[in-house]
């Protein structure tokens, strides 16, 4: 869970930086999108092949992550046994408690996200032949864009998941070595979560307010 989860978070950070290229204008963003699909690690890999390796690793991480989560959940439910008549929650955070259903919601939205921007099956205001920059702008433009709100909600879910995940993964890997380390890991988790939220929502918001056209 920890390893695949951290790989996914690393992907998110990279993806976020990529999306910020929206602020640098169409050439920059389109060139980046094209590079992703064609030229990464070219000429070591033939054009357009590395993306498939990349997608394979991501998909494998997601599948392994979900499979581990499933096995762990079944095991933990059995270990808990019967429920208390009265329980007082004391130390747990909302994020920690919602990792399981939260994860399911993330995965569900991810499917929509890929159908929208990768396969271009759901055309949200753009046409299938638009370049990536135009696609981005058309999807998020308009005052009080519904799409922006939807993405903001999804990002809240993502960032909550990530907040507990960063702390938990690093603890599982043995980095929580003292009271102080615990503070550091928890702060790091918050920083990553907030950074992801701000970094991802910035470009859609800018489109909504008409700063990026």
């Amino acid at each position, binding site marked *: 869970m920890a390893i695949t989860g951290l790989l996914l978070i690393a992907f998110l950070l990279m993806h976020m930086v990529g999306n910020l290229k929206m602020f640098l204008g169409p050439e920059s963003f389109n060139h980046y999108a094209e590079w992703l699909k064609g030229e990464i690690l070219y000429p070591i890999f033939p054009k357009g092949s590395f993306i498939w390796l990349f997608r394979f690793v991501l998909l494998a991480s997601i599948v392994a992550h979900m499979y581990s989560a499933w096995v*762990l959940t079944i*095991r*933990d439910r*059995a*270990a*808990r*046994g*019967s*429920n*208390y*008549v*009265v*329980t*007082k*929650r*004391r*130390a*747990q955070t909302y994020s*920690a*408690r919602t*990792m399981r259903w939260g994860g399911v919601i993330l995965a569900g939205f991810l499917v929509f996200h890929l159908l929208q921007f990768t396969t271009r099956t759901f055309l949200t205001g753009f046409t299938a032949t638009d370049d990536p920059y135009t696609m981005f702008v058309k999807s998020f433009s308009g005052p009080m864009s519904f799409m922006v709100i939807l993405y903001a909600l999804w990002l809240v879910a993502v960032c909550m998941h990530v907040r*507990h995940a960063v*702390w*938990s993964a690093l*603890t*599982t*890997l*043995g*980095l*929580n*070595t*003292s*009271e102080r*380390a*615990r503070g550091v890991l928890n702060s790091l988790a918050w920083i990553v979560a907030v950074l992801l939220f701000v970094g991802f929502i910035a470009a859609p918001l800018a489109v909504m307010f008409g700063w990026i056209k």
Partner: protein
Amino acid sequence: MIINLRVWRQPNAQTPGKMVAYRVEGVSEDMSFLEMLDLLNEDLTVRGEEPVAFDSDCREGICGMCGVVINGSAHGRASSHGDVPTTTCQLHMRSFADGATIDVEPWRAGSFPVIKDLVVDRSAFDRIISAGGFISINAGSAPEAHSVPVPKLQADRAFDAATCIGCGACVAACPNGSAMLFTSAKITHLAMLPQGQPERYLRVKNMVAQHDAEGFGGCTNIGECADVCPKQIPLDAISQLNRDLLKSLFKGEGKTA
């Protein structure tokens, strides 16, 4: 003071249990929670009813025998005056208001089956300890203490971890029914000391394997355990266990048994 109790009554592991209400009168605020239960039991005995079964031994917070969930929190920490970590025997009735209603339940975990009422079978803990929570030394005269120096910080950490009394509150509080805090307390205790080194990596493999074989859940770092632990074993003990377990994967020693 008068206390209204709702206590879990269950004749044995096979029969389903339920909460039963009792009114306990003449409770003094200086009584411990267990003494209050004693008072209830005297009353039940006089009335010819079956007394409530619960575990206890030292009644001074050092043996780990007692332990019930009080108002939804293991050992009743949430009810304690000043919110201090405590064992059930060290929780006093002055922490409650006169006329209060208090819910009392046994530890609940798949690996802690109820024996009767508030008594659960915690022998799974003994089997985890037998799987590796010891050091093998030949008997003989004790060596000169100064011949094996232990750095102060490590000695402190070993000592803090060694204070675990095996009460099981960590399992009772864990939403995953995991016994990682208990297991990691022993791992950390022995890993910090020179005497623990020869078997260190074999120990962690065997104890974790036994933990899993007993049916305890997997830790998701939620932190409820350390909050209710009467000895305040810190969460970093669990990280120490994980660290040693990861390292043990690169060591030759296989698992025994």
